């Protein structure tokens, strides 16, 4: 141990630590307690662990780690951390290390014709993007395999519908042309252009966000007309065909297989633009709006169960985290706020992350991790957050202009689209 401590630091205080981890075998360091200088920072601790691992395996390649003491990430020197938390330096300190959460690879951005306004990484096979030119695109690697064609104005939101037993992929898009369209394509097929199989009309202003029900039976959409509409996604003409017959006469020569749908029900309660909706459970829809509120709706009754007031117009919302109950939202200020609706008595956010310098456009929880989420902002940055520290884990600055949307992809990549018309993929973010 002495060998790797620089000469001048020998004088400083030392603490007895033991490194533990939940990582698998090649990353497991011996758990014997060792004395290390107390002024080591994250980098120093990382090099200590790397040296320990190298001692066990000679061809070890160093990699960054993050360190947890009592469930909190160390973001300063060890000494300062112990002082700040009031932890005694006398006993043997248990430090858990995890792989540092930061993208190790930035892939070449995929250029679009216009601003990329929506991105979805819910399917591990491909990335879906929506663009201001009105086309939805399916990206596999760096090549665009499918183009979803039909919207008359910019796409604002895109998401995959997970239908049980369906062979082809179902996708829902929302657009500024006041429609929500449902698409169906086979991802394996090298077909290029796709037309919507169902057009959902009913909003009187541009649709800002679309979210599918977990079972895939329905989708909900939030719009500038301050309503949330629920739609069925089935392909049969059993309901609403009376409406479609009339329309079909008009554009029968264009596309005969296109269905039209009407809203099953409408959730009214917001007073301004509903900017973001999520549907995490069968019965519950969460929505964020420019009227400064977040509402949770009971789908069966159509009533709002919960209202949180934020004080700022909200742009992005996601539900996840600890037992999928935390609500993260960001809007017209640089602060990403996280609420815990289970906490009764106060509607104050439980976490506030304020490292951005402009409006936040989107925030997304990681699918499998309870702590990690990302946020994108008009300052051109995508930040990865961990609930255990108030600093961003890493900042992705691959965009040259506003970032309009961001999502996780395959659990270890971050996909983001922005006003520089690029889809950026930052991969190998090792979470867990």
């Amino acid at each position, binding site marked *: 141990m002495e060998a790797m401590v620089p000469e001048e630091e020998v004088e400083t205080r030392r603490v007895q630590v033991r490194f533990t981890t939940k990582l698998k075998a090649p990353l497991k360091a011996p758990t014997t307690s060792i004395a290390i200088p107390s002024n080591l920072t994250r980098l120093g601790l990382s090099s200590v662990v790397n040296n320990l691992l190298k001692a066990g395996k000679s061809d070890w390649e160093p990699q960054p780690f993050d360190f947890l003491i009592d469930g909190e990430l160390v973001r300063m020197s060890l000494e300062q951390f112990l002082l700040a938390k009031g932890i005694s330096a006398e006993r043997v300190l248990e430090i858990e290390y995890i792989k540092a959460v930061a993208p190790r690879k930035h892939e070449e951005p995929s250029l679009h014709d216009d601003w990329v306004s929506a991105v979805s990484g819910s399917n591990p096979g491909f990335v879906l993007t929506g663009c*201001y030119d009105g086309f939805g695109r399916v990206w596999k690697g760096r090549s665009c395999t499918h183009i979803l064609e039909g919207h008359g104005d910019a796409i604002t939101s895109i998401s995959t519908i997970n239908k049980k037993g369906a062979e082809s992929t179902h996708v829902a898009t929302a657009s500024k042309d006041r429609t929500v369209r449902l698409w169906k394509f086979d991802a394996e097929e090298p077909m290029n252009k796709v037309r919507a199989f169902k057009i959902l009309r009913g909003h*009187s202003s541009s649709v800002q966000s679309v979210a599918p029900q977990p079972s895939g039976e329905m989708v909900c959409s939030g719009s500038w007309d301050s309503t949330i509409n629920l739609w069925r996604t089935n392909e049969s003409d059993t309901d609403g065909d009376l409406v479609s017959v009339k329309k079909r006469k008009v554009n029968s020569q264009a596309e005969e297989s296109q269905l039209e749908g009407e809203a099953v029900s409408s959730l009214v309660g917001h007073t301004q*633009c509903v900017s973001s909706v999520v549907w995490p459970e069968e019965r519950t829809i969460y929505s964020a709006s*420019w009227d400064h509120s977040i509402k949770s709706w009971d789908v069966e009754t159509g009533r709002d169960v919960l209202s949180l007031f934020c004080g700022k117009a909200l742009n992005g919302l996601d539900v996840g985290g600890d037992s999928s109950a935390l609500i993260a939202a960001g809007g017209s200020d640089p602060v990403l706020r996280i609420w815990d609706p289970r906490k009764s008595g106060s509607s104050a956010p439980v976490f506030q992350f304020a490292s951005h310098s402009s409006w936040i456009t989107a925030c997304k929880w990681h699918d499998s991790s309870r702590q990690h989420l990302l946020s994108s902002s008009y300052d051109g940055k995508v930040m990865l957050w961990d609930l255990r520290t108030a600093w961003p884990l890493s900042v992705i600055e691959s965009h040259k202009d506003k970032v*309009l949307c961001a999502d996780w992809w395959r659990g270890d990549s971050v996909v983001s689209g922005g*006003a520089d018309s690029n889809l950026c993929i930052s991969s190998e973010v090792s979470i867990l």
Partner: protein
Amino acid sequence: MGFFNHQNLMKIHYQKKRNSDKKKNKVSMKSVGDDIIPAVEESDSSEDEVAPRNTIGNAPLNFYTDEEHIGYDISGKKIKKQARKDMLEAFLARSDYPWNTIYDEYNDEEVEIPKEWRKLIRRYLKGKTPHADVDPYPEYVDWVKHDAKHPLSNAPDPKRRFIPSKSEHKEVLRLVTGIRKGHIKFEPPKEEKRVYDLWGEDSSSTDKARHGLRYIPPPKMKLPGHEESYNPSLEYIPTQEEIDSYELMYEEDRPKFIPRRYDSLRKVPAYDKYLLESFDRCLDLVLRPRVGKKRINIDPESLKPKLPSHNDAVTTISVHVSGQWLASGSKDGTVRIWEVETGRCIKMWDVGEAVSCVAWNPVPECLILAISAGQDVLVLNTGLGSAEEQQRVSELLNIGAPSETDNADKSTSIMSWLQHDKHEGIWLKHIKTVTSVVWHRKGDYFSIVMPNGDSRAVLVHQLSKKFTQRIPFKLHGHPVSSVFHPSRRILFIATKKCVRVYDLSKGKLIKKLEPGVREISSIAIHPAGDNIIVGSREGKVCWFDMDLSSQPFKKLRCHPKDITNVAFHRSYPLFAASSEDGTAYVLHGMVYSDLNKNPLIVPLEILRGHTTTDGRGVIDCTFHPRQPWLFTAGSDSVIKLYCH
């Protein structure tokens, strides 16, 4: 014995003091005979300190009371106590010659007191002054002459010293009137004979100054410093990096001299530019013109491709009622629609002339934009709504041939309704420059202001009937802006001096508001309709309460320069004023429904961020209809959004 002076006395005192202070009290005085004189003589013999006979130092004398000796002399031998005189003898000696001797207990000897000292002691004992020469009661000398008069007086200054003299004032008046009327004439200044000073200095400043030229001496050449030395100290020698950086500079900017070190003067090389410089001087001699340096100054920013943004000052902005879109008009003749959420430019029209005003139709379904540019007013279909809405709008904006002829007889001279050929919408041609377009809340009527239109300066157009009517009232002064009452049929017209309030249904003037400012520049009405703010060119904002008087309820002096626009928020108790000084003020203006309560006005924030170009700062400001956000348009061709 001849001279006993003070020094001797001090010496004896000194010897006494040698014993500690306590001992001093114990020194008993004895008057004895003349037998101990030699000891005194001994101490008298020299100026120096005479060591005492006894050498016991500070040891208490009572140590020796029972001994035969009193101490030891300088050679260490015991000093025997002297035989005591018997009491009778001592008493006799004391009574016969009091204060002749004093007994020194330390040295065990009688010390004789000199005669002068005895005199002094006796005088002390009698309570007289020690010296006989001192006269305790001298004659009093009166130094002050009592018969002479004293020059100073304690009397306070008279009042006339503090007030201006009347006689002097009269005299000055007389002189002034005399000069004005020409009675008193001044002698013209004598003209000095101009003599050319043959032997004067060539560059005499007086001569040059007369011709408006002044001799400016050339700057002195800098004296050579340490760095010009052939062997300067190390700190003057540039590092290799610095020398490399010189290479990157332009030829002209490079330092002419780079210090170098030579360890001896003999190694200094010849001046390498000798030939070149002599050649240049030869060229100077033949008056070769010096070539000015030509450097291409390209701003790297200018090479970037143009983003969709205004190229000139943004003069006007308007937010749609839904808060989704922002329309802006610029001096470069373009009107753009922006998405508030993302800041994306959705639509752009080129109207060819500097845009003076844009206004959205206040009806949310009616996505119509009114634009005034030069003498034209365009009412355009923005094409943002759904198909049905667009259908309705385009029907509304369609002008049939007959409607034009209907109006022809009435108002062809001031304006005409035409279908715009390039953009989808109506084109209203006026005869004078239109500065302001304001919609009525129902979105059917809109009023325009032509400051130079004389009797037809303010017109109200009706969109559904394509009908124009002029305001049947006489305006006194140039109108600046107009605004409709939010709920009643009242029109406010601001002229440069005052605000006139007309009831349109009854057709008469209701009120005249007098802000008392130099020139009104803008007017805004509170959404409840009972309060009005007026911005003036001198930087004042006047708040009028319609229920109170025609005088401003409050005058706020906030900007140092002209106020360009004032605005009320539709739902929040906020109002704002933008100014040419590049700032916008946001103020809290709470209006209570209780009529007895006065509005509460609190300044909140100064918003900076715009740069002033051509003396113009923020030209327009508008609140977002639903959020506490303020949009400002600047002369730096930027629209900014300030969020709460």
